[in-house]
């Protein structure tokens, strides 16, 4: 059976969650490999959530926020950007390639962009194969 990557997405309530809703109302189809966790702002994504997802066997993590300058809370997305940048360097050092962590700005009107992002990410993760941490835990 073909490898089906598992993606956890942490999305902000105002932009990317709404974009996922819009993809739905527009009936834009994308692969069912993603699980959304709604937070109020991308700045509320604790790096520990991303670590936990990877350690628990997620093949990829998507963090979705409002476009720069459009944050509902003024500058939360910039905080998310700083944190994710730092976290990526840490994860790389423990053997998780940074391509498994995607930070994307997807506004409430970009239903198609949300669907395209998921489709692209699933495709890319399929190419990369399962996360090394998946097998590490299966002792």
């Amino acid at each position, binding site marked *: 059976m073909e490898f089906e990557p*598992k993606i*956890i997405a942490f999305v902000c*309530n105002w932009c990317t*969650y*709404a974009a*996922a*809703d*819009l*993809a*739905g*109302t*527009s*009936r*834009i*189809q*994308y692969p*069912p490999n993603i*699980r*959304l*966790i*709604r*937070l*109020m*702002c991308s*700045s*509320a*994504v*604790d*790096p*520990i*959530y991303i670590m*936990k*997802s990877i350690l*628990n*066997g*997620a093949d990829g993590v998507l963090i979705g926020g409002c476009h720069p300058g459009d944050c*509902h*809370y*003024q*500058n*939360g997305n910039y*905080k998310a950007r700083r*944190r994710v940048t730092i976290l990526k360097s840490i994860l790389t050092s423990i053997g998780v390639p940074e391509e498994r962590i995607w930070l994307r700005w997807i*506004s409430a*009107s*970009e*239903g*198609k*962009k949300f*669907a395209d992002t998921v489709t692209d990410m699933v495709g890319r993760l399929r190419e990369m194969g399962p996360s090394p941490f998946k097998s590490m835990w299966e002792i």
Partner: protein
Amino acid sequence: MSSENEQNGIKTQSIPITINRKKLQVPPGETILNAAKGAEIDIPTLCHNSALSPYGACRICLVEIIEGGKPGLVAACHYKAREGLVIETDTPAVRKTRRMMMELLLARNPESQTLKDLAKQLEVSESRIRRNEHDDCILCGLCVRMCRERMGQNVLSFAFRGDKRTVSPAFDRTSPVCIGCGACEFICPTNAIFPKDICQKPLVPILSDFEAGLGKRPVVNILYPQAVPNVPTIDKERCLHLTSDACGICETVCQAEAISFNQKAEMRELDVGAVILCPGFEVFDAAIRSEYGFGIYDNVVTSRQFERILSASGPSQGEIIRPSDGKQPKKIAFISCVGSRDQTCGNLYCSSVCCMYSTKEALIAKEHQSDIEPTIFYMDMRAFGKGFERYFEGARDRHGIRYERCLASRVMERQRTKNLLIRYRNEAGRFLEEEFDLVVLAVGITPSPQAKSMAKMFGVELNAHGFCRKVSFSPTETTAPGIFVSGAFGDPKDIPETVIEASAAAAQASELLASKRGTLTTEKTYPDENPFMVEEPRVGVFVCRCGRNIGGVVDVPAVVEYVRDLPHVVFADESLYTCSQDALEKIKSDIQTHNLTRVVVASCTPTTHASLFRDTIREAGLNPYLFEMASIREHVSWVHMNQPQEATKKAKHVVTMAVSKASLLQPIRINSFDINKDGLVLGAGLAGMTSALSLAEQGFNVHLVEKTENLGGHLAHIRFAIDGKDPGEYLNSLVKGVEENERITVYSGTDVKEVSGYLGNYKSLLKKSDEENDIEIRHGIIILATGAKEYQPREYLYGQNNMVMTQTELEESLSRDGGAGLRDVVMIQCVGSRDEEHSYCSRICCSQAVKNALKIKELNPEANVTVLYRDIRTYGTKEEYYLKARKSGVLFVRYEPENKPVVTETGGRLQVEVRDLVLGKNVRFAPDCVVLSTGIYGDNEHLSQLLKLPLTEDGFFMEAHAKIRPLDFTAEGVFLAGLAHSPRTMEEAVAQAKGAAIRAVTILSKDRILAKAEIPVVNAKWCSGCGNCIAACPYDARKINPETETADVIEVLCQACGACSVACHSGVSEQKGFEKRKIMAQIDSALTE
């Protein structure tokens, strides 16, 4: 053994049948298919449609009769139930025959997605039968039945026999009977029928208004994505049922039975005390300017259409393509002032917005596709709004957008390439031609015909342009008392001004109706929250079918079965529409019956429905935050429509995640705070006094603080208005109003020394210049109307020669002695604006220059007035005065910022030399007087620090959002009006002032103010007081408690973003509702198989 049921008092017979060993009671004559559907037994179909009579063509719905009839295979869609019938739907014979049928169907159209999906479901991978090249049609007869039964046209029928059988109109010719409704195309499962081959008449698609005619829409549609309410409407002009009694399919297929063709427009009488008219505007019909070829050439579009082309949710989903060939254009031309500033079509006003939206559209186009080369053809660049000049300069200098100052005279199409040739005359007077791939016409704003009839109905006068006529300094006042106006019906305006006016109109209505505030509202009452319900998590899960929206893809019973076994779940059920009234009642009774303490609804999206379900569980005595929602429609069934198995699996997962979070939920109690109902207004100029009066009229006490000894600010220096109103008289009435109003306490010659507290509860110390002691006042809000300063020129010999003066000084002299003896006047624009030190436009100086020029001409028609300008920015209806000035002989000469005019003095005579760009030569003037149109600058550093409020790069205060919150600060409780915001005209300042007042009243009118629910809490025991949370908070809602040295949350200011809890390095801060263990639980269950 038939039984009798009593339904609505009528006795109906029902008969027993058995399907898949399940005993059912069904009405006699019911088809097997419908009986099975009622019992949740899935039978695949293709040619069946509940709106049409059964036909039995595709044979996919075959089932096997075991007993009670002739044994064998029959089509479930039209075989009728009879007593004692025993049916099996999934026997080897059924499966084998269905697969055979599927192969036969696939042979006719192997490309069809519908067939491929069905084949996958029936486990058929490919057809062994040779492809029928003759026809894509699978002869299911849906189109024939649709046309005959629903549309009543009978255009289509089957023709020929055997392998030549086909669907066609009579004699295989296009039919004169066909009405071109497109229903056949709509219902065809294989996309094998095309109305253009059937209909003799030309087919006219219904174009979507929202997509500006670039996309099609059905008759039943949601008008636009943001429509409120977000429900479909039936276009009654085009609905075939309403116009010709045909069709009516929507009524048949809507499971919620929400379609009613009998609805009629109702007349209702409302008793109101004030009316606000905001009918908006219409976009200029670009076809009127036929020389630009709109409607003739494919690749000439309006700016509104281009906006849709750019939009991510537009017809091309954000891809920039041109209409003629769907290719990406490279060279795009924008032509400004189409239908604005245009005497030929009678629109003598400026539409105020087109320069900037052209710039914006050009920039976005370039953002989408960096090799696009936009050119904007314009007359004057009117970037007069706050921050607009910077935006325009950035577009021109950094983003490579080309601006060509000219009047485009016509557009012609190149026949082969469909490219467009623009003929224009540049500033030097040369005629040029240039080729573009796409032309965007920046169409202007016009008053709508409906607005005109509305104005007539309300007895409101219109001005010469057809916009609402205004006579007072308040731009929201009409000529009829008690009737107010806001938005572009007043005159053309941008979003921030529209939002400001909306607030201002609301303030005016509120001033009239203050005594009646709250008299028509009733408060909803709830039962007490059940304190025992918080202990043990007993989760109830309600899974919604949403008709077929979820139920048609996701196996809802399987999801219900699955969640029943999850930890803490004590109850799970499904419903057809969970948001329907009866389903909500059932949730409430299930909470009582099963003693539920947490509720999960798996349905649509929390964005639209969480509040409804929260309210429902609150009515049942549960805390509303013991609720979690799983989105299995928007995030599952609608986006995985062709993968029912995967969708069901995902739905189970998504509900599990919600349950795992729900079982950890704790009640949230929202705190509320007292409000001090007094207001503080800083600055007693035009804006400050207007705000103070409006607040007082609305019933609130006001402290009005003015730094100087006099009330009035800049208004005191304005001697006359461009439209003939008397500012002096207005000032006197304002000052009198303020001084006589009992609710207003004026503190003149007073400074603010200190402001502490926050929204609802401020304490300020005032220092009067002649008094020792500070005055302490308490107030709930602050309106900042501290104004700005006039630029004091250092250039053009100002201060060295008495005959070099500012516009304000000229105005003074004109009103004092009629500008005695002024025969030759040169005015220089943009002094202290749009230069290196001030990269913004001061907005009012062009109108001021025109006003004073007209005054000079009025006093002495022989006088020569020359205005040296860069762009004349007489926006909106002020354009008519610019025209008037030109007609009365005022000379306008443009200069470039690189070649500023040079003012010299020889022998006491002034001389002005400037390079005339039309003549290409330097010209000299020897005026009696040089008038400098000086800009406005903000002097707000001190206040900005005192009140901790942000400033823009240009030194004006920065509002919460430039477009949609122009009067608020991000710090709640503080509002902004007048020149402290940005340069404004008097009318605009009045609108801001009134708007700021009603914004403040939204707080002051409440008895208590509620904090947000999902705010952070701090475990003070472990807080180290490091201050990370303070740095993370954009709202100043975090502070260190000086006594405990730990972090506090100022609940009333917190906006609940959650950033501080992530910033907390010791993990002692948690956001309610999003505590870390809840998110961790969600992650855990998301990754568990």
